[in-house]
């Protein structure tokens, strides 16, 4: 069991900086997630923690000890690879025994520990099989087994579920969470899937272009995203974004005007600066008649597409504008459409209402749920003052 601390860790490759100066602390026993789009440096960060990659600058500490110059085998960490990387020429038993054999344990100790791990992961009946005769889910289990059998200080998981089919992935996700709680081992988990990040993590770090955007609990990331990128990356379906500006004591956006959300006041706003306004699909709610509270936004939308998910209904509609030039989002969040004066919005509403495509719907957004981002830097203006 161990805590991990990164102090100004940097990774440079010839010509590029894969990981910019990064500092973070992972507490003992914590399930910590590194999430971000591909190429954001999350795997590099993991490889540096385990010692497969050297750091170009900064320090990595485990339980207060600098481990920069330690070989992977001296760090007592176990890793599960995206490709599983189980040894194809060894049986399941030999695979799991391999790290123990290298550690110099006695035959009896190895046998007991392999069998214990096999029981935890329900691999008992497969011990004498070769990996070639296993299904994807079973191979994944063997990789996990090889990791837990050593009782390591830290688990490092590099996209362990991304090669499984959707159903198995959900199932293994739950099992992973249960396993981690049971063992209480510090775990660092790399994924590009925000759902995995939200459901598994005690805390999540969102990375982009080798830089940490925000570290926090899934709830903090969801409710108080630090910037546009985090806001758009976390949550499914993604947050809706529209251009906006501050004028005449209220926020103007293509759908109308809305009051400032809590945390912002007139003094903090500058007239004329370009803003990006964001709101979650579930915060758009249908209203009937004229009973809209003052300061909230209400508008009518024509339903383009309906997606009925059983427990919820996604309503898609278009918003167009002509007087907000130069509206752009971070490239990873951009939709395919090159149209900079039109965006598709989505609302998540109760499916009990009988709606058809082509219907018009009266929707309302409470000012309290609005996120306000600086149009240039992308920083969340609300988060700054929270």
């Amino acid at each position: 069991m161990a805590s991990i601390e990164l102090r100004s860790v940097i990774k440079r490759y010839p010509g590029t900086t894969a990981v910019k100066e990064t500092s973070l602390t992972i507490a003992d026993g914590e399930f910590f997630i590194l999430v971000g789009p591909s190429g954001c440096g999350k795997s590099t960060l993991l490889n540096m923690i385990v010692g497969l990659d050297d750091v170009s600058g900064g320090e990595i500490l485990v339980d207060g000890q600098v481990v920069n110059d330690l070989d992977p085998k001296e760090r007592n960490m176990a890793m599960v690879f995206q490709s599983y990387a189980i040894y194809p020429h060894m049986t399941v038993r030999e695979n799991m025994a391999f790290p123990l054999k290298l550690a110099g344990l006695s035959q009896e100790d190895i046998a007991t520990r392999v069998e214990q791990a096999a029981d935890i992961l329900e691999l008992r009946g497969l011990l004498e099989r070769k990996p070639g005769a296993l299904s994807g889910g079973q191979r994944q289990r063997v990789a996990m087994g090889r990791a837990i059998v050593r009782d390591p200080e830290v688990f490092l998981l590099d996209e362990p579920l991304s090669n499984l089919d959707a159903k198995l992935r959900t199932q293994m996700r739950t099992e992973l969470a249960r396993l981690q709680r049971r063992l209480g081992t510090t775990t660092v988990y790399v994924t590009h899937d925000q759902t995995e990040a939200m459901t598994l993590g005690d805390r999540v770090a969102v990375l982009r272009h080798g830089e940490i955007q925000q570290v926090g609990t899934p709830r903090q990331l969801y409710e108080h995203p630090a910037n546009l990128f985090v806001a758009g990356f976390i949550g499914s379906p993604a947050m809706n974004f529209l251009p906006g500006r501050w004028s005449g004591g209220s926020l103007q956006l293509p759908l109308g005007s809305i009051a400032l959300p809590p945390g912002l006041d007139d003094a903090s706003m500058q007239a004329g600066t370009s803003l990006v306004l964001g709101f979650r699909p579930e915060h758009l709610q249908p209203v009937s008649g004229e009973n809209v509270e003052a300061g909230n936004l209400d508008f009518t939308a024509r339903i383009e597409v309906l997606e009925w998910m059983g427990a919820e209904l996604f309503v898609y509609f278009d918003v167009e504008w002509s007087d907000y030039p130069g509206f752009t989002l971070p490239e990873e969040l951009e939709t395919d459409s090159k149209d900079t004066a039109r965006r598709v919005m989505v609302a998540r509403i109760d499916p009990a209402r009988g709606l058809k495509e082509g219907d018009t719907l009266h929707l309302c957004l409470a000012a309290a749920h609005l996120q306000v981002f600086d149009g240039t830097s992308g920083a969340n203006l609300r988060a700054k003052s929270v």
Partner: protein
Amino acid sequence: MMRAGRQDRRERLWWGVGGVLVVAYALVPVAWLVSLSLKPAEDLGDNRFVPRQITLEHYVTIFQDPQFSSALWNSVGIAAISTLAALLLGAGAAYAIVRLEFSGRRLMLAAALAVAMFPPVSIIGPLFNMWRTLGLYDTWAGLILPYMTFTLPLAIWTLAAFFREIPWDLEKAARVDGASPLQAFVHVILPLAAPGVFTAAILVFMFAWNDFLFAISLTSTNDARTVPAAIAFFTGSSLFELPTGAIAAASVVVTLPVILVVLLFQRRIVAGLTSGAIKG
């Protein structure tokens, strides 16, 4: 249904006939050699494929000749050491070329290939003089060196191709599991590259075992003369007798090990050993 069946039968017939032709083309000379080696001296010119009378007298003769047994020992020793050395160096070089990022990797592979393209005949003269000056003439080392040099490119290319197929994650996994770089190589990479190692071993061994040019030029006595060279020095029991029978017997004796080696290892030379390491 009928059509498919007929097509199937015709295809099988085609493969059968083709196979028999290829095997016959390859094996008839060997069979002829075996037949010659078993004929008594007076029957050698009888133009019969199946010997009228079978005798082992030629085998007895060659093994009684001290020249042949020392040549056999030289052949085995030199070929084995050349194979081992070429494999050790080749595996190291191939692994470095595949795994390490350094400039000039491609150049290195190309240069290695260039070595293999040298016609041995063109360097045999200078080599003869150099070896005499260096004291390598008529020694085991004097033959092992050129054999190793000429087969190393082949070993590097073969092994590099196999190493390239092994997922790098496996080595990383071994390192995280607590293996030193050498342990990772020995326990994980080498077993997975086994088909490549055996392929390379067979190629190197056959080159060294079959070579005549270097062996005849760089040796002069029983100290280092290998079987292919020694056969050229066979003499008949009298001035007027060709040693055809003895040559045939010796040829059979040197062909057997190669066939044995290939048969022994062919089961290991199967691809697909890495299946199951990673997804798909």
